[in-house]
C-alpha cells in the first residue's frame, strides 16, 4: 500500500504537466495579480494580495486533484488497473493511493504560492499560515474525490477536455479569478471551489465562515465520494 503511494507520488512529481498547472502557473498568476494596482480596496474583508494568494493556492490544489481523473482514465485503458487487480493489494488501494498521492503533491503547490505571497509582503501570524495551509490541504480532498469519480466516468479520449472545462469553469464560478458579485455570485456561491476559497480564508482575521459553507463543502465531499465509489464498482464489474 505505502509502496503504491510512493510510486504514485514519484510519478506525479516527475510529470511536467503537473508541475506547470499546479505549481508554476498559480505562482505566475499570483505575481501577475500582485503587481496589479487595486488601490485600497479590499475583497470580502481581505487585501487583494491575500485574496489571490489563497485563490491561487486552491487553484493549484484543485488542479492537482482533478489531474487524478486523467491518470485514472488512462490507466484504466492501459490495463494498469487490471494488472493491480492481479496483485495481493486490495481493490480500493488503487483509489486510496491516488487520493493520498494527490494530497501529498498538493503541498508543494500550496507552499510555493504561500512563499510567493510572503515575497510579496503578505504577512500573518504563524498560526494563521498554518490554519490556511491546513484548510487548503484538507479542502483539496473534496476535489480528489471528484477527480476519482471523473476518472471512472469518462473515457480516456474525452477525460482531458472534460477535466479542463470543469476545472476552469469551477475556478471561474468559485471566484478564483476575481471576486464575484451580483448574479454571478448568487450562482457561484453554491459551487465547491467558492466554498473552498471561503474556507481557506477562514483563519485570516476579520473573515467569517458560516457553518453552512462548511456543511456545503462536506456535502460536496460526500456526494463526490459516493459517486466515485459507485463508478468504481461499476468499472470493476465491467472489466
Amino acid at each position, binding site marked *: 500500500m505505502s509502496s*503504491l503511494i510512493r*510510486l504514485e507520488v514519484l*510519478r506525479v512529481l516527475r510529470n511536467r504537466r503537473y508541475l506547470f498547472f499546479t505549481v508554476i502557473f498559480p505562482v505566475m498568476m499570483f505575481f501577475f495579480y500582485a503587481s496589479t494596482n487595486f488601490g485600497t480596496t479590499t475583497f470580502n474583508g481581505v487585501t487583494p494580495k491575500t485574496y489571490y494568494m489563497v485563490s491561487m493556492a486552491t487553484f493549484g490544489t484543485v488542479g492537482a486533484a482533478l489531474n487524478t481523473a486523467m491518470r485514472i482514465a488512462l490507466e484504466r*485503458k*492501459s490495463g494498469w488497473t*487490471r*494488472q493491480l487487480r492481479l*496483485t*495481493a*493489494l486490495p481493490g480500493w488501494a488503487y483509489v486510496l493511493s491516488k487520493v493520498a498521492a494527490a494530497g501529498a503533491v498538493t503541498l508543494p503547490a500550496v507552499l510555493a504560492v504561500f512563499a510567493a505571497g510572503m515575497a510579496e509582503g503578505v504577512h500573518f501570524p504563524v498560526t494563521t499560515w498554518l490554519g490556511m495551509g491546513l484548510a487548503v490541504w484538507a479542502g483539496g480532498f473534496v476535489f480528489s474525490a471528484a477527480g476519482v469519480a471523473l476518472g471512472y466516468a469518462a473515457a480516456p479520449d474525452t477525460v482531458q477536455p472534460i477535466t479542463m472545462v470543469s476545472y476552469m469553469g469551477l475556478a471561474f464560478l468559485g471566484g478564483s479569478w476575481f471576486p464575484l458579485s451580483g448574479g454571478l455570485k448568487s450562482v457561484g456561491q453554491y459551487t465547491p471551489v467558492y466554498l473552498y476559497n471561503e474556507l481557506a480564508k477562514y483563519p485570516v482575521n476579520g473573515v467569517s465562515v458560516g457553518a453552512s459553507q462548511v456543511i456545503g463543502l462536506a456535502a460536496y465531499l460526500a456526494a463526490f465520494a459516493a459517486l466515485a465509489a459507485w463508478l468504481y464498482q461499476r468499472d470493476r464489474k465491467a472489466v
Partner: protein
Amino acid sequence: MEARHCCRAFLTCDSSCMTTSTETVTGADRKGSAIRGANGHPMHEVAAFRNVSKHFGAVKAVSGSSFTLHPGETVAFLGPNGAGKSTSIDMLLGLKDPSEGQVTLFGGTPRQAIMDGRVGVMLQSGGLLPEVTVRELVGFSCKVHPRGYAVDDVLKTAQIQDLADRRVDRLSGGQEQRVRFALATSGDSDLIVLDEPTTGMDVNARQAFWSVMKAQADAGRTILFATHYLEEADAIADRVLVMHKGRLIADGTAAEIKARAGQRRISFDLHPQDGGDASLLNALPAITALDVSGSTVRISTSDADATMAAVYRAGLYPRGLEVTGVGLEQAFITITAEATAAEGN
C-alpha cells in the same frame, strides 16, 4: 508445493512426530485424494474449471468448459482469436465471474490464490505504469507480492538488468514484454499465467523468452500460456488445450492432438527385385490415404504402428522408410474444422 507446506508445519514438530506425519502425508499425496482444501476440492489441483460458461448478453464466449491443471504442468491454451481464451483466463484469474459453473485456484477462489501470492500473471498488452523506471516498477511488484523476491534477482532472471534504470514508457515492444515477464515472476508463485507472451517478439527474442520460461517450469511451477503460435505449443507445452468458438475441443499432449487429427505420414520405396505384391497395400489397416507413384509409396495413417506391422506381415520390403508426424498446425486445422462441422449438424 505440498511438500513445502508440509515442511512449514513440521518445523514445530519434534522428531518423532515429524517421521510419522511425513509418512502419512507422503502416502496420502501419492494417492492424490486424501488432502483436500477447505471446500473439499483436492489440493493437488492447481486450477479447475467445472462446467464453466460465460455469456455476454446473447453471445456465448465460453460454453461448458471443464479442465484441471496439475502441479508442474506446462499447458498451452491454443485457439484462434475470439475462441474464448482471454475470457477463460479472465475467469481463471477472477477478473470475470463465470455465468455458470465454478472456477477454483488451489481449491479456493481465484482472488484468495492471488492474495496468497500463488499466482503470477503476464498480461498480453498494457499493464505497465509510465513515468517510473523498470527497477521501480519491478521493485513495486516484488514488494506487494506476498512471497516476493529481491528486485535484483527478478531483473536478472528476466535478463533485464541493463534496462533497470530506463523509463518504462521508453521501451521497445520486446523490452516491454520482458518487463511484463518480470512482473509475472516477481515472487514465488506456484502458477504463472501468460496471455500471448511472445506477441510482437522476433524469433530470437521468442527463443530467449522460452528458455527463460523453461527455467520457471523446471523450478516446478505450473505454467499456463495462451498462444496462437502453434509451434510454441508444440515445442514448449506438455499439454495443449484447444479452444474453438467458446468450446474446449481438445485436451491432451501435442502428440495426442496430432494423432487425433490424423496423423502420420509414411513413405517408402518398393523395389521389384525385393518381390512382394504391391496390391496388398490397399488392404493395410488404419490408412486414410494411399498414393503409389512409380516405386514410391506414400501413406497417411491414423495408426502408423499397425500399418507398418501389416506392411511387413504382407511380405513387403520397404526401403528408405520414413514415418513423420503431421505438424500441430495441420492437426489444429483438422480438429477445428471437425468441430465446426459437428456444430453444423
